[in-house]
């Protein structure tokens, strides 16, 4: 069970006028109990979705309130929480830290398997399960974006976390790789919390949270949540001031 009790996250932001940094509220107050197998989080860019996701792994600590995973507080039991909660980022390049796929998966396994030979066997087996066995010894930087994201997922899943949190894992992928990653996420035995802009993926979740301006404005089944999200986006004015002056080609002085 993931519990958020009156959670507020604030951040320092530079003052455009040059004064002292201002404190702004990124999220909150949020109270939730998450125990469904599949939870999706949708919302506009900058709405607070990623902050909410990062709270679940202890990457962001609440400024007020508490986040607990299976009774463990992210503020005081951070390492134990991270052993239970795996986290996958949008950009796989940032989270692959070893030269080859085999070595990257082995890095994750260092904390659970001290024997190097057994570690390598486990890493090869994890790569084989996702169809990357033939790529085990290739340099990470020659893999495609989809292969890198699959590898990032494999590295996180190799240590068998109880919960997987994914922050827009398919945003940078083409349709084929998006389907591949979605299919992998769908068949995982773990509880999965996925932040996404893909409404098809959200529609397959057991529960969907809609985050808007730092608060959860809707929490329920996919149908109602997606309808609410579409309403919110329709109500929003375009961020671009598309006036006639903008559309005209500028004239050179």
């Amino acid at each position, binding site marked *: 069970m993931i519990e958020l009790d009156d959670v507020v*996250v*604030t951040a320092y932001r530079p003052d455009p006028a040059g004064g002292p940094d201002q404190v702004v509220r990124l999220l909150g107050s949020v109270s939730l109990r998450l125990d469904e197998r599949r939870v999706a989080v949708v919302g506009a860019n900058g709405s607070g979705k990623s902050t909410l996701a990062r709270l679940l792994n*202890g990457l962001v*600590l*609440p400024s007020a309130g508490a986040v607990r995973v299976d009774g463990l507080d992210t503020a005081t039991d951070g390492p134990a929480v*991270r052993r239970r909660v795996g986290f996958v980022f949008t950009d796989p390049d940032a989270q692959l*830290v*070893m030269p080859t796929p085999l*070595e990257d998966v082995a*890095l994750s396994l260092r904390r659970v398997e001290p024997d190097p030979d057994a570690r390598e066997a486990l890493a090869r087996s994890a790569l084989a399960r996702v169809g990357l066995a033939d790529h085990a010894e290739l340099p990470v930087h020659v893999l495609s974006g989809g292969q890198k994201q699959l590898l990032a997922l494999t590295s996180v899943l190799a240590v068998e976390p109880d919960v997987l949190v994914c922050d827009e894992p398919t945003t940078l992928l083409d349709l084929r790789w998006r389907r591949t990653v979605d299919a992998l996420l769908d068949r995982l035995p773990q509880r999965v919390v996925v932040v996404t802009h893909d409404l098809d993926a959200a529609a397959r979740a057991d529960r969907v949270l809609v985050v808007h301006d730092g608060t959860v404005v809707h929490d329920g089944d996919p149908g109602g949540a997606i309808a609410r999200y579409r309403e919110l986006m329709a109500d929003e004015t375009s961020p671009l001031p598309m006036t006639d002056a903008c559309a005209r080609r500028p004239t050179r002085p």
Partner: protein
Amino acid sequence: MSGPLRPRWAGPLGLHHPGTSVVHRASPGLKLGVLAAAGLALALVRGPFPALVALALAVAVQGVARVPWHRTARAATGVLALALLLGAYQWWARGWAVAVETAADLVALVVLASVVTATTRADALLDTVARAARPLRHVGLPPETVALVCGLVLRTVPVLVQDAAEARDAARARGLDRSVRATVVPAAVRMVGHARVTGDALAARGVGEPTEDRRADAGGSTVRA
């Protein structure tokens, strides 16, 4: 016609090439020790002839390790170009003997370092460095973290090369081909951004983190955005 495109980075550093040669079978500690000793010897022993002997030995070790030459050829070209530039300057400033010594020392060390990373898994290197770094625990440096830093260097080289290439492409796309500032500043910003996200990713994977209360360490809980 420019031929097939090449990856941004095709250097040998950090690329493991599986094999069964005597160099592959040697312990990572021995290989790192020999590399360190070679570096020290090349710094202390002066003259062009020892440097040329060292270069010949390095090439021989690469041959014994049976690391394919095509894997190292492209990076070697870059290092050779740098060695030639340095050599030319040394020739002009200090004479041919220093020029040959400087260029041969540089190429020999790069070849040896490439052989070490090509014949040793990063995982085994981490184990070795972590063992060697155990005494640092007494001054507050966790050995696993020290080892991880070494592993990160191997992976970070191609990432930084890619960041720089993307920044250069972005500048060219805006017609700023000749602007050094339009390339260097965004490249530096990308690299710092990459470092921050990598730090987050390592923390998310629970790699090398302290076990104590992070809230107390942070000195507060408001996010620095």
